[in-house]
């Protein structure tokens, strides 16, 4: 790799200055922008496939009784909706943004490990083709929930080994992406770009990358043990053979909780870039923002037990996990307060990225409040495994992670393409998304509190009204998303020329704004001056 690194980033290598033509440009891509684009396009495709599954789920739940799909297919949809949205949509989108933005933000020509970069992307289409092809095998897709709890997950049919292999590939891809980010940031910063001067997006990704390297192997281990339990008669999780099904939950959530922050920390970084730009004022408490991200990352390793309160746990463990979980509210609060203080006495304008960032601020906070409620152990016994939990994690993932991604795309898209996009259409996209995401998920709080369990295809009649409201919100939210690729395609094809600053009249910070729009193929061929 060291050899590949030095030859690819050497600037006198003339044939690397221009993109290759045709399919070769993409298949053999080593350029961070090309790979970033492929990640983002891939993620968008997965967002619509996962979204289509969500539409099936909401259509079946529109009214009580089973009208469209049988319970097994319903469970396949909930399971794969989660797997695709997490591993196919949110995580690759952030890797795509990292690929595009980190070299430009730190003043580097490219990512440090371009061939590994190519490999880590091209694994993904194969992983997800494999995962989606399980729809066609006997027994259908995995239906045991994305959490893969045994013994239920061991009842999966022929798709089981395909699912496990797909997860292994996704994990390998994520680990390689993370290694690339760390190596790039540690070695390729422009002279003078010390770590504390580094933009918040790069910072949030640096910390996320360490989380990924720490926990993706844990997931790989967990699913490998499932595999050997299934095919080689081991009993890691089989109680009858002396194993322990709860041990799987511990291992899974040791991966699973940091995973939650893997999906949201880069969004924190994006929001920390956007709010100062459109408030025309530097980020408030930039250093404490970095410490807050690092504290959240550390705490994310010691709170996994809060997913398992109802599985039986000693009192001391309940108290520990409750308090550790509540503690996360402190650095998260610091972040929200700092963002608010960034807007305070600023001069705010409301371009699409700013609108998404503001919606993030409000709606992610709502997800934070329900998270705080869920941390209270006795109350968690009532909320756990209900729609209250569904509402909670969708509030942090949809208006949290996904609005963060959309804000980032709307922020940097003119930089990438050199064209401004259709602002009116983008504002329509924002308002429809922001309104209907609440119609979709807010009533699910009520459903959960009133006693509707999650992951059920059919429900008692008293849950009808809120389910209908939620489904209508879901359909409208889903339809509104069609605007997103339309706006992007239109912007790639043409539009008003974007200046190198893009957002004229604001003060975006970061080296990416010193480059022309679109930036040259190798972002910084000579290291820039860092102010």
């Amino acid at each position, binding site marked *: 790799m060291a050899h590949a690194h030095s030859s690819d980033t050497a600037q006198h290598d003339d044939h690397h200055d221009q993109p290759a033509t045709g399919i070769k440009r993409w298949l053999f891509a080593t350029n961070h922008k090309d790979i970033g684009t492929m990640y983002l396009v891939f993620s968008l495709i997965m967002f619509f496939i996962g979204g289509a599954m969500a539409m099936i789920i909401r259509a079946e739940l529109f009214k009580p009784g089973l009208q469209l799909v049988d319970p097994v297919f319903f469970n396949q949809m909930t399971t794969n909706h989660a797997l695709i949205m997490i591993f196919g949509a949110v995580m690759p989108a952030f890797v795509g943004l990292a690929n595009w933005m980190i070299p430009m933000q730190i003043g580097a020509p490219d990512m440090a490990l371009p061939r590994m970069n190519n490999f880590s992307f091209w694994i993904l289409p194969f992983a997800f083709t494999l995962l989606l092809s399980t729809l066609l095998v006997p027994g259908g897709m995995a239906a045991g929930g994305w959490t893969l709890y045994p013994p*239920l997950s061991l009842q999966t049919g022929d798709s089981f080994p395909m699912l496990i292999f797909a997860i292994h590939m996704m994990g390998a891809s994520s680990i390689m992406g993370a290694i690339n980010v760390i190596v790039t940031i540690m070695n390729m910063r422009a002279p003078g770009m010390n770590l504390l001067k580094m933009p918040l997006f790069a910072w949030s990704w640096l910390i996320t990358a360490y989380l990924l390297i720490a926990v993706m192997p844990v997931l790989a281990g967990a699913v490998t043990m499932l595999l050997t339990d299934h095919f080689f008669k081991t009993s890691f999780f089989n109680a009858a053979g002396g194993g322990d099904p709860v041990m799987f939950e511990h291992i899974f959530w040791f991966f699973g909780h940091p995973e939650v922050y893997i999906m949201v920390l880069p969004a924190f970084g994006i929001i920390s870039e956007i709010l100062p730009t459109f408030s025309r004022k530097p980020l408030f408490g930039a250093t*404490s923002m970095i410490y807050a991200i690092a504290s959240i990352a550390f705490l994310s390793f010691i709170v996994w037990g809060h997913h398992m309160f109802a*599985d039986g746990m000693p009192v001391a463990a309940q*108290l520990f996990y409750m308090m550790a979980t509540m503690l996360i509210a402190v650095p998260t609060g610091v972040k929200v307060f700092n963002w608010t203080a960034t807007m305070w006495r600023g001069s705010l304008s409301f371009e699409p990225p700013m609108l998404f960032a503001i919606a993030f601020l409000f709606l992610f906070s709502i997800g934070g409040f329900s998270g705080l409620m869920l941390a209270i*152990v*006795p109350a968690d016994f009532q909320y756990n*495994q209900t729609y209250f939990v569904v509402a909670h994690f969708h509030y942090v993932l949809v208006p949290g992670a996904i609005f963060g991604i959309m804000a980032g795309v709307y922020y940097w898209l003119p930089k990438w393409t050199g064209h401004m996009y259709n602002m009116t259409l983008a504002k329509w996209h924002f308002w429809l998304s922001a309104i209907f995401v609440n119609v979709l998920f807010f009533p699910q709080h009520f459903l959960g509190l009133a006693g509707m369990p999650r992951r059920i295809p059919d429900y008692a009649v008293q849950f009808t009204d809120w389910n209908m409201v939620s489904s209508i919100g879901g359909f409208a939210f889903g339809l509104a998303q069609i605007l997103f690729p339309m706006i992007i395609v239109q912007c790639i094809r043409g539009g008003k020329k974007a200046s190198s600053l893009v957002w004229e009249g604001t003060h975006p910070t970061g080296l990416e704004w010193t480059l022309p729009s679109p930036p040259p193929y190798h972002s910084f061929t000579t290291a820039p001056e860092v102010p």
Partner: protein
Amino acid sequence: MSVTRGDHDSTSRPSAIAWPKALCLAALGAGPLAEANTSDGYNLPPGVTSLSKAIYTLHMEVFWVCVAIAVVVFGVMIYALVKFRHSQGAVPDTTLVHSTKVEIIWTIIPVVILVAMAIPAAKVILFMEDTRNSELSIRVTGYQWKWQYQYMNAGEGVDFFSTLARDSNFARQLKSGIDPKTVPNYLLEVDKPMVIPSGTKVRLLLTSQDVIHAWWVPDFGAKRSAIPGFVNELWFKVDPGKEGIYRGQCAALCGRDHGFMPIVVDVRTPDDFKKWVEEQKAAVKQAAAPGAQPSNAAPPATAQVLPTAAK
């Protein structure tokens, strides 16, 4: 099956008639018993046990704290959004980038609020986990997709399965054409409910024969996973005077029919409970008598018949 059938609870009840159970219970002199669930449709039920009420209180406290924080934080945000608009000629104060004092304050205040929340929560945890001195223990076993209740102590020998009621099971089939609204307690009715006495500390010992299930009755504030190879404990004590029917559902994804293994608890006065236990025991004796079918250990016939019958 004959063992498990109570006099008032016929498994062959026609789906159109909603009344038999309530009428029979009323006839037993147990008071107005029909539906006792306490949720209002958008909030947690306060419930009928000291634990469920403690949880409800905690839930409302934390909720109002969150609302108060939200009002302040969102209020400041909205003020900023209205007041500091570029279009209104707001001039940015680019010197406002850091304040150690403010940052320390908004770190300490949340810590204080969290400690204030954690203390009452910890008290409820200790209360919840105290399973000592229970007066009645019931072993609850989860199966795909039904519950088995095996009574100990005063109920020793009572042992039966509890499965989704027939009319719900017909209506819930894909494209059954039956409007769930016409089915009494759609998906929340069983062939034979668990019966417990009020005012008695009941302890459940939960386990599973196949995959992980979770036993949950919201009105009792009681939820715990039933895990193969483990025995989990939970307890509740229904307030005297709160006799009636309480409903819940399996709360852990357990495969195809996860949504179709409800839990129904019939809470009776201790005297009525005693009578019920006697009846159950008499039925067991009758079944064990020569000539009768031995059916104690086998799952109820309905569990196997229903899915095919519904096709």
